[in-house]
């Protein structure tokens, strides 16, 4: 039996989440943490969450973000930022640190970035320089206000929500003088728009209401534009009170040059270079990662306060004095309190592993995506359809790449050749990210919210009070919003419905199963069988029909595709945790601080991963069994029964792993008090 000496510190996290070599990110973490446990925690403790209105007290948050560099984190150094290159991991780490204390503060820090994201992804160079510069804090010698932004897509009922296709926000030509820039009249009503109290500009999704404008676009509207910029009524939300949300009503006149990504004039019509759908696709691809990690951070933040509450539960009473088990261990004497906390911890770790893996891969993906764009443009493949056709031609090579990537002794020359082909690399990363990003948003928030409820239960009545250390009740309420905004769970399931059937992803998953099995690590064989069960079920549903002859796996049949997506999320999050534990065991010995407690850490994390594998394969198995048998579909289901039985049998030892992990939890040293106020 091993001993877990302390809770995992920064050194451990840096190895697991792979930023041990990135001191820029380590500094960002420290910056965000200081704000979270200082300004943010104080605001929550002072009761700032009790009001729907944005006020001066909450305004301290923006000031803290500006001072500590978080406001300019999204920007490149030449725009006033300080991190070169892609920033997905950086933004994910910040969201994680802020949400450790309060999710609304993380929303507040991310919302301006969300407003800037359309400009960052698809804006013209002039638009980028104009808005990015204004959104950074003034440099020494400059005297100007910092511009904040809001992202306005969602519209009042009955319009845009989950379905973002039909927009009621409209753009018309107001004035178009010969040889001059057209002036547009834009009307947009928003619902639930974050940052709206203090936004200097919004990036709004609107459709054409004029023959002289083609299709939809996104456009920037500024508070000082001629017309009405009414910030509207505050949203009476019951969570994320440290962010500002209102329903604005905007009707302004703006030059057509505000269309994000620019436009062309064709046959006397304004043709935007990008539709609103193209832009939001590119934006949400990335911004959903930090949101998923917000719920995860809260789960992991619950561990220390729960342990402290359990240990000290009976101290001060007359029945037990120092030295007695009741005094020293309190509720931790009871096995169930420890084991349920192990479950919460394992789920938190899996979510973090999944989300940070997605963020890292997104950093890798950003430049490749740009290379792909350039390459395809050079080949004359413009527009989504032509691009898809060009990429489809690369599929065989992408599959070969997957084969080599997972091979024991690959042909290195060929691997390097494929690796150097931006389209092949794009196809692979795109296939994986198109599963891991929606999985992060869907699983981390939805399943995470359920586990947060469990954490509150472990605190008894204290859990549902405002005084509960760690603000657990607030955190639980907040997680419901994290599961909702930037696309609720249904949207992520719809996304996965399409992307989980990508042959490149399926091939990678298949190879991953073999790789896991070969690793011989605790739980790896069970997870491998779980993955094979999923793959078998996917194939069965994709080719089969139900007892009434209707197709099973079909975009319109959510009763099949949605649960299949849910099962996949359980499994991919467990894979990520297995990967990170392997990394810790491999790299830990090289770091002197981690090395000291590595035996305990590896023992504990191996056990935690096995616990998570048992839960994940169990959840997935239950869902898959319903899908395989539930439609009374024709076909031989014996292979599934065999795979399921084999998955179950390979769980041998998983409960012993939980016993050990829970025993370790009873001995772990925790700080004397929480490092943020109550």
């Amino acid at each position, binding site marked *: 039996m091993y001993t877990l000496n302390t809770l995992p510190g920064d050194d451990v996290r840096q190895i697991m989440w792979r930023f041990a070599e990135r001191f820029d990110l380590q500094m960002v973490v420290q*910056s965000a943490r200081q704000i979270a446990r200082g300004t943010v925690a104080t605001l929550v403790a002072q009761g700032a969450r009790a009001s729907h209105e944005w006020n001066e007290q909450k305004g301290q948050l923006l000031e803290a973000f500006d001072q500590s*560099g978080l406001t300019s984190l999204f920007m490149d150094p030449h725009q006033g930022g300080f991190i070169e290159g892609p920033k997905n991991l950086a933004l994910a780490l910040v969201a994680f640190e802020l949400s450790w204390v309060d999710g609304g503060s993380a929303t507040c820090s991310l919302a301006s970035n969300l407003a800037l994201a359309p400009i960052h992804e698809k804006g013209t160079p002039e638009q980028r320089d104009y808005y990015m510069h204004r959104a950074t804090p003034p440099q020494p010698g400059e005297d100007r206000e910092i511009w904040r932004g809001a992202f306005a897509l969602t519209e009042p009922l009955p319009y845009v929500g989950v379905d973002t296709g039909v927009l009621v926000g409209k753009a018309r030509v107001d004035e178009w003088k010969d040889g001059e820039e057209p002036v547009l009249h834009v009307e947009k009503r928003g619902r639930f728009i974050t940052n709206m109290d203090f936004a200097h500009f919004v990036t709004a999704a609107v459709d054409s209401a004029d023959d002289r404008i083609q299709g939809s676009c996104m456009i920037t509207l500024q508070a000082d534009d001629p017309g009405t910029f009414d910030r509207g009524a505050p949203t009476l939300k019951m969570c994320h009170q440290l962010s500002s949300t209102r329903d604005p009503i905007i009707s302004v006149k703006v030059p057509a040059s505000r269309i994000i990504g620019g436009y062309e004039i064709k046959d006397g019509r304004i043709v935007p270079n990008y539709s609103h759908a193209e832009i939001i696709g590119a934006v949400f691809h990335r911004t959903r990662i930090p949101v998923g990690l917000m719920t995860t951070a809260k789960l992991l933040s619950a561990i220390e306060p729960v342990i402290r509450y359990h240990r000290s539960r009976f101290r001060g009473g007359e029945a037990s004095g120092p030295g007695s088990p009741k005094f020293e261990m309190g509720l931790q004497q009871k096995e169930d309190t420890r084991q349920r906390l192990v479950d919460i911890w394992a789920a938190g770790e899996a979510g973090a592993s999944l989300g940070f893996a997605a963020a890292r891969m997104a950093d890798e993906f950003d430049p490749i995506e740009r290379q792909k764009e350039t390459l395809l443009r050079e080949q004359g493949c413009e527009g989504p359809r032509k691009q898809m056709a060009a990429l489809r031609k690369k599929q065989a090579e992408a599959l070969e790449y997957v084969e080599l990537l997972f091979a024991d002794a690959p042909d290195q020359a060929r691997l390097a050749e494929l690796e150097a082909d931006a389209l092949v690399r794009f196809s692979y990363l795109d296939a994986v990210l198109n599963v891991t990003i929606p999985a992060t948003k869907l699983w981390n928030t939805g399943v995470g919210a359920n586990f947060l409820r469990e954490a509150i239960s472990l605190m008894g009545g204290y859990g549902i009070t405002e005084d509960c250390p760690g603000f657990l009740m607030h955190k639980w309420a907040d997680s419901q919003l994290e599961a909702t905004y930037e696309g609720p769970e249904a949207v992520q399931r719809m996304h996965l419905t399409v992307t989980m059937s990508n042959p490149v992803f399926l091939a990678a998953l298949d190879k991953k199963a073999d790789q896991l099995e070969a690793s011989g690590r605790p739980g790896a064989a069970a997870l491998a069988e779980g993955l094979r069960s999923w793959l078998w079920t996917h194939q069965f549903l994709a080719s089969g029909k139900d007892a009434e002859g209707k197709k099973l796996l079909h975009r319109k049949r959510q009763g099949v595709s949605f649960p299949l997506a849910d099962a996949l999320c359980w499994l991919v999050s467990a894979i990520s945790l297995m990967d990170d534990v392997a990394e810790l065991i491999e790299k830990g010995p090289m770091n002197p601080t981690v090395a000291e407690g590595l035996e305990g850490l590896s023992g504990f994390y191996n056990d935690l991963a096995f616990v998570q594998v048992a839960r994940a394969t169990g959840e997935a198995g239950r869902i898959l069994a319903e899908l395989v048998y539930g439609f009374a579909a024709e076909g031989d289901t014996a292979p599934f029964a065999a795979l399921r039985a084999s998955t179950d049998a390979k769980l041998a030892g998983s409960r012993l792993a939980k016993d050990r992990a829970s025993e370790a939890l009873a001995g772990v040293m925790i700080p004397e008090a929480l490092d943020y106020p109550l």
Partner: protein
Amino acid sequence: MSYHIVVCGSIVPDPLQTLTPVDGPQGPALKNEMMLPAVLDPWAGHALYEAANLAARHADCRVWLVSLGPKAKLQQVMMAVAQKAPFELVAVDGPASGFTDSFAVAEALAEAIEGIADLDRDKLLLFGGWQSASRGAGSTIQMVAERLGIVDQFQGVDQLNITDNGLEVLERIEGGSWLTSTVQGAPAAFGWATGELPEPPNNPQVGMMNMKTIMPALQKAKPAALGNGFGVNNVSLPQVVRETRVVKDMPVDDIARELVDWIQG
């Protein structure tokens, strides 16, 4: 007048952690010491922020932070400290705990300071904490200064002003009073009490600049030979066990009453 300010300061375990002395293979240590999160020694922190403030207000000043500590932990703490103020790091690898001899520590620090290539000793202001949160010996800075031949020394410093007459120093003395002294100029040594400045907010731009010297300094940090100046026979916790309570909104009078009750009881 420009100054070369050398701040001596290292890390201590985060004060929120449970600090339990144990007997380790190399003598006494704190339980799980390597794994506990660390922070910049608060007394040294005050000295560093005062140094940076002074340097910002006077032309051509330079600030070095000389740290003797386990370099892996030092590196972690630098991720926060480097964002607070501009400085150049000189790192010496070795224990930063309270179980080393301040005599040996002073020797290692003085040697590291003597090795700073660009340091102009005529401009040297030696800064540090008047004591440390890990070992309140209150003797390290004095001994570093002696080794560097600095005879003008001040302890318990809360304020340092540069005037036309030289450096005006406010030192804590007994009975809750301050003593004002004036010293003509460098070199001089200052063991800081709390000073007057709050902890500066993080500024990642400053951090990125500092990292250019911090990472190389950590890589080439030499191990300190602290010798066996003294031995520790045993260590134990004080009789009264620390029990941290977090209480919200307690009036000052009630806190005072509780303390009096506790002392009397």
